[in-house]
C-alpha cells in the first residue's frame, strides 16, 4: 500500500467511526419515547420528500445487483461518459474569454479581489495575468473557444457550456470528491455507483461502472472517487485499462484452461449455495453473483475492451497510440463500452494543474500539451458517438474540479518561473453534450476578468442533479437509507439546470 492509500484508509476508518458515533445518538432520538415528536418529525420529513415514494425502496437485489432497472421517468440518457481533467484546467485559456483581463496583464491584483479570500498558494499581492491563448467565436452559437482546442472548436454547436460553475473546495482531493460523490469528505458513493445502483446495467457480461485513468498519475482523491461508499460494494467502479489486460487478474493462471476455470467457479458457487441454505446471509448470494460476473467478464471483457480490433480510420480519428496507455485510447474504449451497454464510464486524465512552477505545469507549455493530447480524442468521441446514433442516448460531461485564478501564481510571494494560475473556486467551465442536452447553448456568465459568476451560477450539486435528471431520476427522491436517514447524491442541495436541457 502506498502512503496515500494508507492515509486514505485511515481517513475512511475515521469517517466511519465518527459516523458510527453519530449514528447512535440519531438512532436513539428516533426511537425515543417521545412518540408525538417522532410522529411530527416523520410528518415533517415526509413533507420534505423523504416520504414513501417508490424510489426510496431499496433497489438492491444481492443475487442480481446489476440487472437493468427502470428509472422513475424515461430518461434521455442511457449511459454517461464523464471526462474529468484532474488538476483543474484553466478556463481562462480554454473557454472563458476575458479581453479585460488582457488589459490588466502585469498589474497588481486589486485588493478587492484578495480581501477575505483563501488561496492554495498565492501569497501577498500577485499580478494579473492576461489570457495566454487567442480566442475566437465558433459555430452558429458563437461560442468562445481558444486556439488550444482547434478540433473541439468545431464542436461548439454540439455542446452546452456552463461558464459559471462554482465550488467551495480549493484543494484537489476534496474538490474531486465533491464533484463525484457529493461531499468533500470520504465515505460517500460516487455518481457512477448511484447510477448503477439505480439503473443496473444493460450488459451483464461487463461491469456497469468502468473507470479509465491516464496522464501518468492517479487523481488526488484516489479510488474513493469511484468508490461505492455506503452503497453495496458491488457498485464500485471497476478500473479497466485500454492496454494489456483490460482488467487486473482477468487472465486465468497458466495451466488452467477456461473450462477448468468455469468448473472451479461452478464448484465455488455450488458450495456457497449450501452455505446460504444454512446461514441465509444475503451477502453470500451477492458473492455468488460476483463470481458469475467475474467469469462473464473473463469471457467478454478481453474482446470488447480490445481497441486494437478497431479499423485504422477509427484509430486515426481518435489519435490513439497502440501499445501505450493514454487518454485517446481510453476515450475510444469508452465509446466501445457504451456501445455494448455499459452504464457509466469515468475517465480521469491527470496533469492539468497549471500552477506555473515548472514547464509541465505552465499555461504556455504544459497546458498546451495537455490540450493537444485531448483535443482530437474528445472531438472524435463526440463525432463518433453522433454518427453511430449514440450521442442522443449518451451524456458526455467534461470538466475539472475547480478553476484557475485570473492572477498569476506567486508561490510564497515569489512569482512562479512560468506562467501559471492558482486554484480558483468561484468560477470555472464545464461542458455537457448528448443525452438530451441542448446543442450550442451557454449558461452562466462571469465578470469581465473571470473572477466571479454574475449570472447562472451552478455548483457540483446542480451538475449532479442534471446528470441524474437525464438518466431519469429526480435527485431529491433518489435516496438510500444509511444511519437512520435517507442520503442522496446531491446531499441537501442541487437544482436541475433546465437551461441546458433540450
Amino acid at each position, binding site marked *: *500500500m502506498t502512503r496515500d*492509500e494508507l492515509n486514505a*484508509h485511515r481517513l475512511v476508518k475515521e469517517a466511519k467511526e465518527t459516523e458510527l458515533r453519530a449514528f447512535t445518538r440519531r438512532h436513539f432520538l428516533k426511537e425515543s419515547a417521545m412518540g408525538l415528536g417522532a410522529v411530527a418529525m416523520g410528518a415533517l420529513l415526509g413533507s420534505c420528500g423523504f416520504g414513501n415514494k417508490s424510489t426510496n425502496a431499496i433497489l438492491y437485489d444481492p443475487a442480481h445487483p446489476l440487472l437493468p432497472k427502470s428509472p422513475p421517468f424515461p430518461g434521455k440518457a442511457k449511459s454517461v461518459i464523464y471526462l474529468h481533467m484532474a488538476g483543474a484546467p484553466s478556463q481562462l485559456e480554454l473557454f472563458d474569454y476575458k479581453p479585460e483581463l488582457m488589459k490588466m496583464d502585469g498589474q497588481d491584483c486589486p485588493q478587492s479581489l484578495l480581501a477575505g479570500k483563501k488561496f492554495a498558494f498565492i501569497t501577498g499581492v500577485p499580478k494579473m495575468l492576461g489570457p495566454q491563448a487567442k480566442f475566437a467565436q465558433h459555430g452558429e452559437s458563437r461560442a468562445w473557444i481558444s486556439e488550444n482546442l482547434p478540433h473541439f472548436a468545431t464542436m461548439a454547436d454540439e455542446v452546452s457550456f456552463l461558464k459559471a460553475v462554482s465550488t467551495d473546495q480549493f484543494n484537489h482531493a476534496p474538490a474531486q470528491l465533491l464533484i463525484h460523490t457529493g461531499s468533500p469528505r470520504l465515505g460517500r458513493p460516487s455518481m457512477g455507483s448511484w447510477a448503477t445502483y439505480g439503473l443496473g446495467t444493460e450488459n451483464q457480461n461487463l*461491469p456497469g461502472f468502468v473507470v479509465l485513468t491516464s496522464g501518468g498519475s492517479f487523481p488526488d482523491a484516489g479510488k474513493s472517487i469511484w468508490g461505492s461508499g455506503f452503497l*453495496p*460494494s*458491488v457498485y*464500485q467502479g*471497476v*478500473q479497466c485499462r485500454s492496454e494489456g489486460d483490460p*482488467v*487486473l*487478474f*482477468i*487472465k*486465468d*493462471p*497458466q*495451466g*488452467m*484452461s477456461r*473450462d*477448468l*476455470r468455469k*468448473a*472451479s*467457479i461452478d*464448484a*465455488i458457487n*455450488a*458450495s*456457497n449455495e*449450501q*452455505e446460504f441454505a444454512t446461514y441465509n446471509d444475503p*451477502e*453470500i448470494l*451477492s*458473492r455468488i453473483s*460476483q*463470481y458469475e*460476473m*467475474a467469469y462473464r*467478464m*473473463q469471457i467478454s471483457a478481453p474482446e470488447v475492451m480490445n481497441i486494437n480490433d478497431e479499423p485504422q480510420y477509427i484509430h486515426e480519428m481518435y489519435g490513439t497510440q497502440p501499445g501505450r496507455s493514454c487518454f485517446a485510447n481510453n476515450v475510444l474504449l469508452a465509446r466501445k463500452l457504451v456501445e455494448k451497454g455499459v452504464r457509466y464510464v469515468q475517465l480521469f486524465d491527470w496533469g492539468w494543474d497549471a500552477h506555473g512552477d515548472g514547464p509541465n505545469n505552465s499555461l504556455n507549455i504544459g497546458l498546451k500539451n495537455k490540450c493537444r493530447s485531448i483535443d482530437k480524442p474528445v472531438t472524435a468521441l463526440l463525432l463518433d458517438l453522433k454518427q453511430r446514433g449514440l450521442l442522443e442516448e449518451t451524456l458526455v460531461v467534461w470538466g475539472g474540479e475547480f478553476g484557475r485564478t485570473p492572477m498569476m501564481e506567486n508561490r510564497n510571494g515569489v512569482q512562479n518561473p512560468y506562467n501559471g494560475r492558482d486554484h480558483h473556486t468561484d468560477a470555472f467551465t464545464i461542458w455537457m453534450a448528448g443525452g438530451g442536452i441542448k446543442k450550442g447553448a451557454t449558461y452562466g456568465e462571469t465578470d469581465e476578468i473571470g473572477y466571479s459568476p454574475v449570472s447562472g451560477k451552478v455548483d457540483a450539486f446542480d451538475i449532479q442533479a442534471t446528470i441524474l435528471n437525464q438518466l431519469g431520476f429526480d435527485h431529491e427522491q433518489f435516496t438510500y437509507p444509511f444511519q437512520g436517514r435517507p442520503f442522496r447524491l446531491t446531499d441537501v442541495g442541487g437544482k436541475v439546470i433546465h437551461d441546458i436541457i433540450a
Partner: protein
Amino acid sequence: MQPEEDRTNTPLQALVTLNDAVYIDIARYFALRMKKNGGKDVNNQIAQGYQWLMYKSIPDTKLKILGNLYRTALNDYKKHPDQARQLLGGQQTDLHPETAALVVVANAMLNLDEAVTKN
C-alpha cells in the same frame, strides 16, 4: 497486489482471489500440504485441508462438490500434462496431474465464501 483492507464483494475482488499470482502460490503450497499430510485418499486430503482452513469439518455436500471438481481437473491434466506442469509453477519436484488437480481444488477452497470472509 491489490490492497485488501476492505472485504469488498465485487467481481474485481473475485478475480484477485482467483487469479492473483500470490493466491495461486498459496494454493500450490496448500495443495502440496494437503497431499503430504492428508493421507492417500483424495477425499481425506480435501477434508483435512478444509479443517486447516476453517477449523471445522467439511460438510458432506461440499466434500462431494470439491471431489467432483478434483475428478474433472484430474481428467483434464491426465490428457494435458504440460498444462499440469504450468499450473504447478516454479517447483520442479512434483509434476503429477494429481497434484495439479489438487491445486485447482485448493484454489477453489480459498475462494469459498467462508474462507474469504474469515480472512
